[in-house]
């Protein structure tokens, strides 16, 4: 087992047993579910909205080159720059080179999961540049030196007491755990940073091709300040975020907000397409869009998996996932957690190293049910498993196990014999009270279950008796 899988199992076991943690997450998810249900009821036809969004993303992804070029041209027409980064290193280099060339000492950041994916923070810090996360949840986990727990609500694992203690320690001017006061403290602290930073970095929810603008949504207004005040605005986005037309947002914006937080629409739904124009009196002098591939073009080429690129990063699947609710966001050890993380990470970073994430699911299908763009997430988990097996990447014992299984179920008499033997073995184990011990091959099961005694006769034997073996 590799390190990533080992660490996942360790953390998952630890968190599964942590009842306090499970309760906190349960409350957070319940809160989301209530808001989300209310949000969906605001639609006349939520299912129609999903179908429309699925169609929009299908159009975008299946003509990705065309729409990216259209987007790029319009951005350049406004005097913006577009850089295409093949991988994390190239994306980091573009930004660090730019920051160095412009003498940037401080950067304010609005949420960008891609920035986590490419590990931008450490690269900038190494140059002595201070990076300030301005999304409150990201700000909190940054102060705690943690990674985001959830792509939409990064600090959902913390309660107000913990946050108050954190602010008291790091900001000083806080002596309460009242959320209102805590937010005010963050506003005070971050306001200084917004107005002194030389660069603002944001992600993008969508890249609008026909307008040549990025769409960025926040509730706090931090995204707007990052993209309005500092003299340089840099956008980091995966190449798959493109959508064909501005009016596609008429459906995507309400759907993203509903799926993400249950709101009808996010407070600030912004479009930015370039540096300040000649007739504009404020805004950044420079506008750079860094488009990141980092394995996405390979995923595009995999026709069966292509729809995974439709993801709009709403987080609904994460909220619906019973495994996430049990192990929490940090256990995954990856930028993207929950179902989308378990589907995407093996594809972007290697099936060999990350297949365990695709196996860590009961395949309940709740994720696929809630996905607003109708990605069949749990089917993709199955595909990941199949491809891991086809790559001969699975443990020898498992492959042998299924070879035996196939032999056993290939013939009714064999099956009867094997079943009889297995039941006999189970009854012996149970009689000798060995079930659940190290001698028990079914230990993982019997350790956690008090199973009833294995039956003496199978259904087919009893059926045969009942029906006189006709």
């Amino acid at each position, binding site marked *: 087992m590799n390190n990533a899988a080992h660490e996942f199992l360790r953390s998952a076991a630890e968190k599964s047993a942590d009842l306090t943690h499970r309760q906190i997450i349960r409350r957070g998810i319940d809160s989301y579910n209530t808001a989300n249900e209310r949000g969906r009821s605001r639609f006349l036809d939520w299912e129609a909205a999903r179908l429309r969004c699925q169609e929009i993303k299908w159009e975008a992804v299946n003509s990705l080159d065309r729409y990216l070029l259209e987007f790029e041209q319009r951005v350049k027409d406004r005097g913006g720059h577009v850089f295409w980064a093949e991988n994390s290193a190239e994306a980091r280099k573009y930004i660090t080179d730019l920051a160095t060339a412009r003498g940037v000492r401080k950067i304010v950041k609005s949420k960008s999961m891609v920035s986590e994916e490419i590990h931008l923070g450490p690269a900038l810090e190494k140059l002595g540049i201070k990076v300030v996360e301005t999304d409150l949840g990201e700000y909190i986990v940054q102060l705690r030196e943690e990674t985001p727990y959830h792509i939409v609500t990064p600090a959902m694992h913390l309660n107000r007491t913990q946050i108050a203690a954190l602010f008291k320690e790091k900001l000083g001017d806080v002596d309460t755990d009242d959320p209102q006061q805590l937010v005010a403290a963050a506003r005070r602290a971050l306001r200084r940073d917004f107005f002194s930073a030389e660069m603002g970095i944001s992600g993008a929810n969508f890249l609008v091709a026909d307008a040549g603008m990025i769409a960025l949504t926040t509730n706090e207004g931090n995204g707007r300040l990052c993209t309005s005040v500092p003299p340089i605005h840099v956008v980091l986005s995966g190449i798959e975020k493109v959508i064909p037309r501005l*009016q596609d947002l008429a459906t995507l914006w309400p759907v993203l907000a509903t799926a993400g937080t249950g709101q009808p629409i996010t407070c600030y739904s912004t479009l930015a397409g370039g540096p300040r124009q000649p007739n504009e009196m404020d805004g950044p002098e420079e506008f750079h869009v860094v488009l990141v591939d980092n394995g996405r073009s390979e995923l595009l080429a995999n026709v069966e998996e292509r729809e995974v690129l439709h993801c709009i990063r709403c987080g609904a699947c994460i909220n619906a996932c019973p495994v996430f609710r049990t192990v929490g966001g940090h256990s995954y050890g990856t930028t993207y957690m929950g179902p989308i993380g378990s589907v995407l990470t093996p594809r972007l970073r290697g099936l060999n190293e990350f297949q365990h994430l695709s196996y860590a699911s009961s395949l309940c299908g709740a994720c696929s049910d809630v996905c607003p763009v109708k990605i069949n997430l749990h089917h993709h988990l199955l595909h990941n498993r199949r491809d891991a097996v086809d790559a001969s990447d699975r443990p020898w014992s498992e492959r042998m196990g299924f070879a035996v299984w196939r032999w056993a179920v290939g013939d009714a008499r064999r099956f009867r014999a094997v079943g009889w033997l297995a039941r006999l073995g189970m009854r012996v184990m149970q009689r000798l009270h060995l079930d659940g011990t190290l001698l028990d091959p079914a230990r993982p099961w019997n350790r956690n279950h008090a199973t009833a005694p294995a039956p003496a006769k199978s259904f087919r034997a009893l059926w045969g008796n009942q029906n006189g073996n006709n």
Partner: protein
Amino acid sequence: MATTETQIENPGRARILERLRTALRETTPRPPGAEGRKIFAPVTDVLARFQQECAANITECIVTQDLRSSARAVADVLASLPPGEIFVQDSPALRRLAPEWQTARSIQWSSEGGPKESAQATITTAEALVALTGSVLVSASCGGRGASVVAPVHIVVATADQLVPDLEAAFALMRERNTAFQNSYVCLITGSSRTADIEKILVMGAHGPIRLIVLLAMRPE
């Protein structure tokens, strides 16, 4: 930046495009789409719906008779705020109404630059008002980027004929006016800033304005 410079500095661009084109030689079936099904119930009474949504998203919507009455309402709001400069969009309409505010405060006009960090309030017009969500559509033409986000109070002076039923209509309007090409920045604002990042408890007043006030005049002048 010249194209040649970009080509030299960004060899990855051609490689990415090549990979995308190769990948897309294989097609996937088009999904069915919504097939004409209506996603939102049509908005019948735009004014009533706008007011209802504003109440829900905590936008203070004050309906006035005309712009002069709106101007007097602005004066009332300003009187209630702590002392300090206000920032106003330099539009003909707001220039005309400015005397009505009768305020001793110093006014910075948008033509002089962006709002200062210390501004107590900003006053702007809007591109449109969206009834479905109770939103205000602004662009860089509405006093610049900072105008609708920097100060703790943002006051929007609008008229009822600016109401559109839903987002589709708002985008249609933008198309007509070429808003996306006249501006580098557009924002659809729905309520004042907020966050639920602490225990999922909604707290109003994060980094953007703490109050969003819409003065909606039934008639222009």
